[in-house]
């Protein structure tokens, strides 16, 4: 057999990135990040051991954003410094909890599951949107700077107002709609493994808001649906169980002025997504769908 050259090499890379290819891409990225992280951790551990030899206790230096509209002295935003004792495997969330429980009980942030599934502790850590619970301190340069998600109104300290994010999520009719349910209440709809695989990554969204916060377009256009909401629409539009009429309806929502066409393929959403969802690829695919559909009428 002759060697096969993937066709996609000829096309523009971002445009051609289909779902089938994006999974290996995500895996590659995972491998690469893992390798980088190992190297980095090893380096940090070496440094720490040296530091520990020099001092009795190893501490991490945190600079944490503080603001409270109600408390005099905190009405002007400022940064507080905390020096938190370090143990191996400690995450940014662990450090924040330590600082709150031992130094200042008024330090305020959202968190709950601490295993990257509830989506409540997305923050801006060392200049990047991250989930604090899955971010190892050892991966970061000191001082570790922790701020609320940019482009969202700050309620207090690290807590931002998520209402706008939720409103955008709800604007895409984020629920399954089909006219083709089986008759029996004990009979499921059929879905091919391939189709489930196609929507799988899109269903992983935990609504943390990191993508929206990292998106330049969303920052400048308050009506832009944003990557999370478009991804939510993708999850249903690509589900074969919804049928073609519903897909058309979904495409109409996505093609509106502040829909998919606003995306300028900057990839920042994809870059920060803690669940590795290929958000930009999903948006691009929907743009292609939109063109395809419209072509039919020309």
């Amino acid at each position: 057999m002759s060697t096969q050259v993937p066709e996609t090499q000829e096309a523009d890379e971002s445009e051609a990135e289909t779902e089938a290819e994006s999974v290996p891409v995500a895996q590659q990225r995972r491998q690469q990040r893992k390798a980088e992280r190992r190297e980095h951790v090893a380096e940090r551990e070496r440094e720490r051991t040296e530091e520990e030899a020099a001092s009795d206790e190893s501490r991490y230096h945190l600079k944490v954003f503080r603001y409270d509209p109600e408390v005099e002295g905190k009405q002007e935003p400022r940064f507080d410094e905390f020096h938190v004792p370090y143990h191996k495997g400690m995450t940014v969330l662990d450090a924040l909890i330590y600082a709150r429980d031992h130094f200042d009980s008024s330090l305020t942030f959202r968190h709950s599951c601490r295993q990257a599934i509830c989506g409540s502790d997305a923050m801006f850590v060392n200049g990047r949107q991250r989930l604090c619970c899955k971010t190892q301190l050892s991966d970061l340069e000191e001082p570790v700077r922790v701020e609320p998600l940019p482009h969202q109104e700050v309620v207090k300290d690290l807590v931002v107002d998520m209402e706008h994010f939720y409103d955008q999520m709800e604007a895409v009719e984020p629920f399954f709609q089909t006219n083709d349910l089986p008759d029996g209440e004990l009979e499921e709809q059929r879905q091919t493994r391939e189709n489930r695989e196609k929507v799988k990554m899109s269903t992983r969204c935990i609504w943390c808001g990191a993508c929206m916060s990292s998106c330049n377009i969303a920052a400048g256009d308050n009506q832009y649906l944003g990557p999370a909401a478009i991804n939510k629409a993708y999850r249903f539009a690509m589900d074969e169980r919804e049928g073609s009429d519903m897909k058309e309806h979904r495409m109409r929502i996505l093609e509106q002025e502040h829909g998919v066409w606003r995306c300028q393929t900057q990839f920042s959403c994809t870059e920060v997504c803690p669940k590795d969802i290929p958000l930009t690829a999903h948006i691009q695919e929907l743009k292609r769908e939109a063109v395809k559909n419209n072509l039919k009428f020309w």
Partner: protein
Amino acid sequence: MYEHDVIVVGAGGAGLRAAIAAQEEGADVAIVSKLHPVRSHTGAAEGGINAALREGDSWEDHAYDTMKGSDYLGDAPAIETLCQDSPKETIQLEHWGMAFSRDDDGRVSQRPFGGLSFPRTTYAGAETGHQLLHTMYEQLVKRGIKVYDEWYVLNLAISDEEVPEDRTCHGIVAYDIQSGEVSGFRARNGVILATGGPGQVYDHTTNAVANTGDGVAMAYRAGVPMEDMEFIQFHPTTLPSTGVLITEGVRGEGGILYNENGERLMFEYGYANNAGELASRDVVSRAELTEINAGRGIDDEYVHLDMRHLGEERIIDRLENIVHLSEDFEGVDPLEEPMPVKPGQHYAMGGVETDENGETCITGLYAAGECACASVHGSNRLGGNALPELIVFGRRAGAHAAGKDLGTAEITTGKRGEWEAGEVDTPVAPGSVRSPDDSAVADGGEKAADGGAVAATGDEIVTRAVDAENRRIEHLMTKEDGVQHAEIRSEVQKSMTRHVNVFREKEGLKQALRDLREARERYTDVYVNDPSRTYNTDLIQTIETRNILDLAEAITLGALAREEFRGAHWRKEHQERDDENWLKHTMLSWNDGAPELWYKPVILEGEEKTYEPKIRSY
């Protein structure tokens, strides 16, 4: 004051399902939750939903497995309801679009799980709970059901007749976390508690930080008995450093447990010669700890769970989430090396006593999900039985509260049926600590200012409850110094992990009671340092800590009283199951500030047959 027909407290699987069901019955329903619904802990469930969907399987087999798994402490009417309703409820989720894993023919996939005689665990990768939570929240959005998110429920508004069975729940008092507003919520038909588990009683738990058992503690102090609280499930495979859960699906797919010598411990030392790694959770947890205590653990702390032989393709298809969790939280790539695992607190089999329709002994008060005890899990829950519990009993509670006739319940609640008084020898007096100052205000145990005299209408009862909670908050916020909640909470968690864990003995349990008494005393001096009314997590955690104290004490009291070995409850001094004396439910009622212990019989008579207790072997 806000007003609705049905108010659901909590927005995890059970709360969402209850709200949808209530709305389908025509009720004006609202959810009040301290988290936004998609943040609920149901999202962390991994394994799957047991439902007899296939040819060759039957709800009767599912019921038998569940009764056996429970070590014969489950009530047959509840178990049979679970197993009969689960297939329909599971397919209902599929009809709502849930992204289940699929077989080649397009049907939903099922896999084997511990303690099951048929591979009946329906799943969505290793993220079933996430898919379930989001699918149900989508239905909520579709229906426009009102959610008061980030509102913390402080207390229930309940009339104060002498006997709990005569009382009525008229609503709740809640606190808007973002604004600090305290408000009454009047429920015309009923309140449904769906507040989840109490994992934060322990320091090594798979549970979220939000899981502080608020609903159970509130119902308990209002007069509803807590049932079987001593039965805490420890999951055999949690990551040692964080308590993050590694699903039973890993063993279901063929994952193997090894000790330090590389021996397949479940067979090598005869812990479960037939089922091996797929024995039920209590059996596997004890096996692992026995290995560790015998010096065959790794780093004296954990054992290895190996899934490499399953092959990357199968792992990525069915357990991908596990790869990420193990990498992110333990720094171990399970495609290349075995994962370190040890037992961790996972689930409370006990909770608010309800019947199979979700009703408690107080009129208008319901509970469903992990906070409730119907009881379907008895002394040990089978993997894959928590998610069906949420949807089955969530729906029933919601529908019933909205007025649907589900028929008369076979399980009786409160002291209406057969019961016997209990006794336990404690080294210190359990219950609330009343010092001469206004500590009763601090712990929320304040009696009505009018001495409980005739608050006639529901509105008045809600208003009175609002006043009491306002005084509590005022007290906590204006107190200038004292002890902080984090200190008390951490002491309780450490003592519980040390003394009321997988292995239990009399002296340790007594020590835990002493520690808890001391923690209660310190709690009378608790104060809130953060002066802000905006998003005051300090205040909320202080109130949660009070709930943790009540639950920790109930777990310990139940464990001390139950002098036998059943399911998840192992006692050093009592190594045998004792059906003659202990085939009964442990009940604790809050009686004038102190727990009263009593028992009620287990119902083993099912629809068509009686489940005869047998020696449980795997």
